[in-house]
């Protein structure tokens, strides 16, 4: 998935290839640079390269996970894809059910409205993402109202249906969010996202703020809904165990760049990038017999406003050689479907997680 090759591909001709699932979304060389302003004149003195040349594709009906540590750009990527924030450059090719293949980055107002009817977002914090002054009817019915779907009675009926779909009692329809717990509020957020029957949902850390026992309920709900409605998820998260559970394929980001993409089993059991190995090694296992098996990564995440030269990971990488400090590696497809951005990927023998089958 080298960004340059991908840019020249016409996605329409790529669908239906033998053995490959149909693509729903192709992100090509996506960049989002936030300006840093300083002084009285708010002069731009630099840029935070939050997302810096990210390319990947999503197959219809799958769950694609984006993982990485804070500041790696995973959330900004998710939001840029929905044009919740304006990307700086790059293409976001989306196979819309009404519009066909479009580049979301260049959609005009009218088409953007259509696109947004088919794509939705579930947020991390169920406390701040719901307006406390609106009842569940208003909250979940708002997307219907804004898009002129049905009359008041039909909307009420649809909201009641959505509530039972996400496991809440339809009698709650006139209640306000404060009456619900975090897990229940997250269900409200999911119901709202589903109100318009979207094709594609960006889930931005949807279970990070929830308690363990509620996390499991919410993950199960997301999987049930995916099966029932054939949804495609972009699942942004930092919890590697959650991602292992729910995602079909995973992309690992580090300081605004994708460093490795593969299907979940391959990525977890035989990672090719040293950063993926370090991330997997740092996860605490809920088993005391694993104690002390964690690997420690030295140093801290690079500053995306002034990233290091060459490979951004080289100052922390235990395997770095001279080349890594001055030459940036390309994202290469080393095995079919397994992409890695590392000079040494062929030589290194990295350790993943032993998967139980």
């Amino acid at each position, binding site marked *: 998935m080298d960004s340059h090759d991908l840019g020249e591909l016409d996605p329409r001709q790529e669908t239906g290839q033998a053995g490959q699932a149909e693509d729903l979304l192709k992100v090509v060389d996506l960049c989002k640079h936030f300006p840093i302003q300083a002084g009285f004149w708010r002069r731009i003195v630099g840029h935070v390269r939050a997302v810096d040349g990210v390319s990947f594709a999503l197959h219809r009906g799958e769950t694609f996970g984006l993982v990485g540590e804070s500041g790696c750009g995973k959330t900004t990527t998710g939001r840029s894809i929905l044009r919740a924030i304006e990307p700086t450059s790059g293409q976001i090719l989306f196979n819309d059910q009404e519009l066909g293949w479009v580049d979301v980055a260049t959609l005009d107002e009218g088409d953007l409205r259509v696109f947004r009817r088919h794509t939705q977002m579930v947020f991390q914090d169920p406390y701040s993402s719901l307006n406390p002054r609106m009842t569940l009817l208003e909250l979940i019915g708002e997307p219907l109202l804004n898009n002129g779907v049905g009359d008041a009675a039909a909307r009420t009926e649809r909201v009641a249906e959505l509530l039972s779909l996400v496991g809440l009692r339809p009698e709650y329809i006139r209640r306000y969010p404060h009456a619900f717990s975090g897990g229940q509020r997250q269900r409200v957020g999911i119901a709202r996202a589903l109100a318009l029957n979207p094709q594609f949902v960006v889930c931005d850390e949807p279970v990070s703020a929830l308690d363990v026992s509620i996390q499991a309920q919410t993950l199960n709900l997301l999987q049930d809904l995916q099966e029932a409605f054939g949804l495609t998820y972009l699942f942004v998260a*930092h919890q590697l165990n959650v991602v292992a559970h729910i995602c079909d394929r995973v992309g690992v980001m580090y300081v605004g760049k994708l460093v490795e993409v593969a299907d979940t089993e391959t990525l977890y059991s035989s990672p090719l990038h040293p950063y993926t190995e370090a991330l997997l090694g740092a996860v605490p296992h809920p088993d005391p017999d694993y104690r002390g098996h964690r690997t420690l990564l030295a140093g801290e995440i690079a500053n995306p406003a002034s990233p290091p030269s060459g490979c951004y990971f080289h100052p922390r990488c235990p395997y770095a050689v001279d080349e890594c400090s001055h030459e940036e590696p390309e994202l290469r497809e080393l095995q079919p479907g397994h992409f890695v951005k590392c000079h040494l990927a062929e030589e290194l023998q990295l350790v993943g997680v032993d998967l139980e089958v």
Partner: protein
Amino acid sequence: MDPGILIDIQKLHTNFYLREGVVKAVNGASLTIAKGRTLGVVGESGCGKSVTAQSILQIVPRPGRIESGDILLHIAEGDLDETINIADLNPGDPLMRDIRGSRISMIFQEPMTSFSPVHTVGNQLEETIKLHQPDRREEAPARVLDMLRRVGIANPERNVESYPHQLSGGMRQRAMVAMALMLEPSLLIADEPTTALDVTTEAQILALMRDMQSQLHMAIMFITHDLGVIAEMADDVAVMYLGRVVEKAPVRAIFHSPKHPYLQALLESIPRIQKRTGARLKAIEGVVPNPLDVPPGCPFHLRCPDFMPGVCDEVVPTDTTIDEGHSVACHLYTD
């Protein structure tokens, strides 16, 4: 009291008096912390784990207060051998102020909120010495530098002059560990110290805490909701649910032979990195009950798969000993 025990909490009740009613945040919890060992306290939000810690330090925020129960602190140093009941002390008692910081110290989830933003890191660390050991204030700057070096802060000579906001999240958490350990306390209470950190930084801080524990031989009370961190850090574990300790055991028994239905369900509900079956997770049905309206009997009976009508919804279960150091509060195990 057993000489190996540092803190012995018996039937602690800490209540919050709200306009809507009384929240029994800690509702008869009993647990012990052994000298030099790590007690992991695990539970979901609202289970009372943080309020238990605040009770030990007598820093329960208003409108909360310790209602009844004992918090016995065992001090044995040279020929000094005494037991203080912290629950009997007034929060403003000079003895309590002496215990805080020098015998028991605490680190928090968000280091930014526990540092003053307008004083340098060095100033705030020196303050602990100036307050507790005024006769040794001359040594303070040197000891601060030494401690910063020990907790792995790069360039301590320069960072001692930094303000907290100038440090990264991981460095700030290191500085907070340094502040908590300045006076070499016998107990460090860590309330979700790594929850706000990234996994690679979390691994660094956990390693640091283990390292400092082996150097200073202190006990750690490690509060978290993350069973992975518990497995990594704890020697002994107390599992809390709705203000009560429902199971206590050494860490291996907690993970390999859990007894309480809540703990069993909790362990099954976490997605594991090694397992990828595509199957659904075993979720615990329902939600934690409203703390203003706690059900009678066992606090978990509304969600329990092994619910026995007439018993679980009527009688509060007491601790049953399963094995040495392993007890559970559940009617399934009472005769």
